[in-house]
């Protein structure tokens, strides 16, 4: 295995977040009853013609600018011809020789913290097909054309990725980017964001690519990773057993965790691409590009760099906090209230308690039960030592479940930290008096028992003793070895 190098390229299909379809006026909303969002154009009735939705061009240009690509001044829609019941016209309108976006790139961060640039060969506009329905139909196949004509941006990478992890990191980065740009909702369950993976292996040191297999329609990051793992193992095993990888299209079965052959190169369709005579070439001029450029938000990499610089965060933290516009905005709102000098505290809480609560309850950050102002109020109580970090977690849970403000919970539950030295000393004295054996042991060199005393004091104070003060006082009181 270690003698083999993996080569991966991804074709990501991002459904563009338009209200209407790419060539018709039908709605694109997900989940409507079958065929209620398909008009005569979507049904490919005789005589109807496609009319390009100008919004999709704007979105493609936005993406192109965000990945530093060149935006074609002239791009052409072509017909990809094949017969299938979910393809009403008998051809898919796509872009072939002249795509709207070409030659971009994207940076991903690897596990060791290094950064790798992945090339983006092209991004082109196309329409989605409908889908076939088999459930509940005896001896028949139903066709739902609601999805037919939904706009897609197909983003094709260079074969630059060398592991499943890199592929997932790249896919996540594109996912982040398209949501930043608000050109795709990124909803993978609904199929708004999916990919095909081209996978091959070659002996380490060999320049020539191995024969690739294309794994179709992967709609989760986990499936991408698992499918690539399976496929790489399959190809290596095949070659090491004296066989040859054939160029083919494969399907990933998530239930069995394996890829299966769909069709070989020989069986592949000849799509007979040619320019669609019903549509004019898309002409894009400089003012249009500049107008789109003006609408670009701060991009993930820019935001991460700013977080790292302005808030002295690690590259990792800055990367996590800029992974979505909403998360970044939440974090910034917290820092605004808390002050940049406490950015690390804010970062830890947003990435820690808040994120795990959101994940646990499957809630989007926009709908978080604890809003940035509420979280800021809680964190301020850590900063001013009203409560300890540990108690704060308890308060946060209460805020999350009861929806009350931090101060109200601290007061109601009496969680205010004990910072009065004499009060803490009193408790320490009582604990020492009650545990003479442990005291003797400690003093004879069992340093580890220091923790036992801390625990006892905390237990007696309900965890409210100020930890720093407690440490200080306890050291003095225990005396003895003194080197704790």
């Amino acid at each position, binding site marked *: 295995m270690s003698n083999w190098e993996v080569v991966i390229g991804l074709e990501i299909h991002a459904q563009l977040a338009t209200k209407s379809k790419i060539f018709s006026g039908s709605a694109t909303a997900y989940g409507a009853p079958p065929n209620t969002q398909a008009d005569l154009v979507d049904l*490919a009735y005789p005589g109807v*013609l496609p009319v390009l939705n100008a919004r999709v061009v704007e979105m493609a240009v936005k993406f192109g600018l965000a990945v530093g690509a060149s935006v074609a001044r002239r791009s052409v829609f072509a017909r990809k011809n094949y017969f299938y019941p979910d393809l009403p016209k008998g051809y898919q309108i796509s872009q072939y020789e002249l795509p709207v976006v070409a030659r971009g790139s994207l940076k991903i961060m690897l596990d060791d913290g290094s950064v790798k640039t992945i090339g983006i060969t092209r991004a082109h506009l196309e329409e989605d097909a409908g889908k076939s329905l088999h459930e509940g139909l005896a001896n028949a196949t139903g066709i739902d054309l609601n999805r037919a004509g939904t706009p897609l941006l197909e983003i094709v990478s260079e074969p630059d990725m060398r592991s499943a992890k890199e592929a997932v990191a790249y896919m996540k980065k594109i996912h982040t980017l398209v949501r930043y740009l608000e050109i795709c909702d990124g909803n993978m369950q609904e199929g708004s964001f999916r990919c095909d993976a081209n996978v091959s292996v070659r002996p380490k040191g060999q320049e020539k690519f191995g024969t690739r297999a294309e794994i179709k329609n992967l709609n989760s990051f986990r499936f991408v990773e698992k499918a690539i793992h399976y496929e790489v193992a399959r190809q290596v095993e095949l070659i090491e057993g004296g066989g040859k990888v054939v160029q083919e299209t494969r399907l990933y079965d998530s239930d069995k965790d394996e890829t299966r052959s769909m069709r070989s190169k020989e069986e592949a369709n000849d799509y007979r691409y040619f320019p669609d005579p019903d549509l004019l070439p898309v002409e894009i001029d400089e003012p249009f590009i500049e107008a789109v450029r003006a609408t670009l938000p701060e991009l993930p990499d820019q935001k991460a760099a700013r977080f790292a610089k302005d808030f002295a965060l690690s590259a990792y933290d800055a990367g996590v906090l800029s992974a979505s516009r909403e998360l970044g905005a939440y974090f910034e709102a917290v820092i605004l209230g808390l002050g940049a000098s406490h950015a690390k505290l804010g970062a830890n809480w947003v990435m820690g308690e808040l994120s795990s609560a959101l994940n646990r309850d499957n809630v989007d950050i926009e709908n978080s039960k604890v809003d940035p102002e509420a979280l800021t109020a809680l964190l301020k109580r850590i900063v001013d030592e009203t409560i300890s970090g540990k108690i704060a977690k308890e308060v946060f849970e209460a805020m999350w479940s009861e929806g009350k403000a931090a101060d109200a919970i601290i007061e109601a539950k009496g969680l205010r930290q004990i910072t009065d030295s004499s009060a803490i000393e009193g408790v320490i004295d009582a604990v020492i008096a009650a545990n003479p054996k442990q005291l003797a042991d400690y003093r004879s060199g069992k340093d580890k028992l220091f923790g036992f005393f801390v625990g006892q004091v905390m237990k007696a104070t309900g965890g409210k003793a100020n930890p720093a003060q407690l440490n200080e006082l306890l050291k003095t009181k225990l005396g003895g070895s003194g080197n704790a």
Partner: protein
Amino acid sequence: MLHNLFIGELADRLVKRQISSVELTRHFLSRIERLNPALNAFITLTAEQALQDAASADARLGNGEKGPLLGIPLIHKDIFCTQGVRTSCGSRMLDNFVAPYDATVVARLKSAGTVMLGKSNMDEFAMGSSNETSYYGPVKNPWDIAKVPGGSSGGSAAATAARFAPIATGTDTGGSIRQPAALTGVTGLKPTYGRVSRYGMIAFASSLDQAGVFARTAGDAAAVLQVMAGFDARDSTSIDVPVPDYSKALGAPLKGLKIGLLREFFEGLEPRNAALIEAALNIYTGLGAETREVSLPHLPLSVPTYYVVAPAECSSNLARFDGVRFGYRCENPQDLMDLYKRSRGEGFGAEVKRRIMTGTYVLSAGYFDAYYLKAQKARRLITDDFRAAFEKVDLVIGPTTPTPAFDIGAKMNDPVLMYLNDIYTIGANLAGLPGVSLPCGFVDGLPMGLQLIGPHFAEAKLLNAAHQYQQATDWHTHVPRGYE
């Protein structure tokens, strides 16, 4: 007789209430009932609807409304979708297809108050030059029922010549208006590509198809074009150029008009045909026009170019007829492939299949460059030739067809011989230019056509030149025997 009147006179009588639209409609319907069985010019008659529409037109006239086409009966080629009326396109494939919407051409003429008498017979999917490929049987030429009327708009041409209506719509992909107009002795106008919306016109070859009109005079054609022409947001290839007042343009004198004689059109021209064109030129010089020879050196490439481009587009355009959503479906399909094969195999006729196969072939991997791409280059050369010619002259002139109407059955077994019929008309389609065919005399008792071709959007100039010719000649007033 009413049926020999031009629409200007008919409109005048309608406005003056000397005649009602219902009476006019009845008059034409009774002619059709009596005379059409010998000609087979219709696929569907809509007598009942026509009388209702005529009554509505009468009501509008009664309210003092005026309009050059208000209350005027017409016939639509069965390629135009007509809401609630079968739209067969001359094919078994659509024998059961009732269009759920009106083509833009139909809608515009409807709101102008025209009264549709029926849908005219045509070559299947407009593929043919003799109207013999229709599923509904051949149309006969009213000048001699042993002869073809030309195609593909043979029904509209024959019906106009037989005075079944003063005007009829047609479509022209390679000469399908001008050639049958010539062979039946009527005036046929093919506008500039993009001048008239293609929405709702069942596509044959999208980059060549253009809707136009049959009439008995250029003046009548001008009135109809006035209503048909104009930008349509539903057809991306329709062009947003202002529509001039075509009827107003008809008065301009021809003095100084530069007419180009296409050298390539006259080479090898049959002497009697050449003599008619000579005579027409004399008329034009008598009207003050200047003539000079121009050359389109690449014009001889037009037939082979056309028979690559048109089949390529048709092979894709006709893919939607798959038996799934509308149109013909075979009995008891065994599986999907069987459904496709038999529905298309049984639904399409021989000529349509021949062109689908040709088109599929020229777009196939390995042949695309040699055929499709080369044809596109030849098309560009032909277009450039015309452009260069129009820098020297205002219009070019020549015959519409090499011969008069031929015998039914004479060329059906020799597709190349049949295709050569369009040798003079195809160039204008490849270059997207407007062209008109005018009756200019007889050979063997059969009408011949004079063709004028102009630069893009020169319809006004073209119609005026045609009108001036008709003011100076009476060929357009000849009526086939039995249809006086």
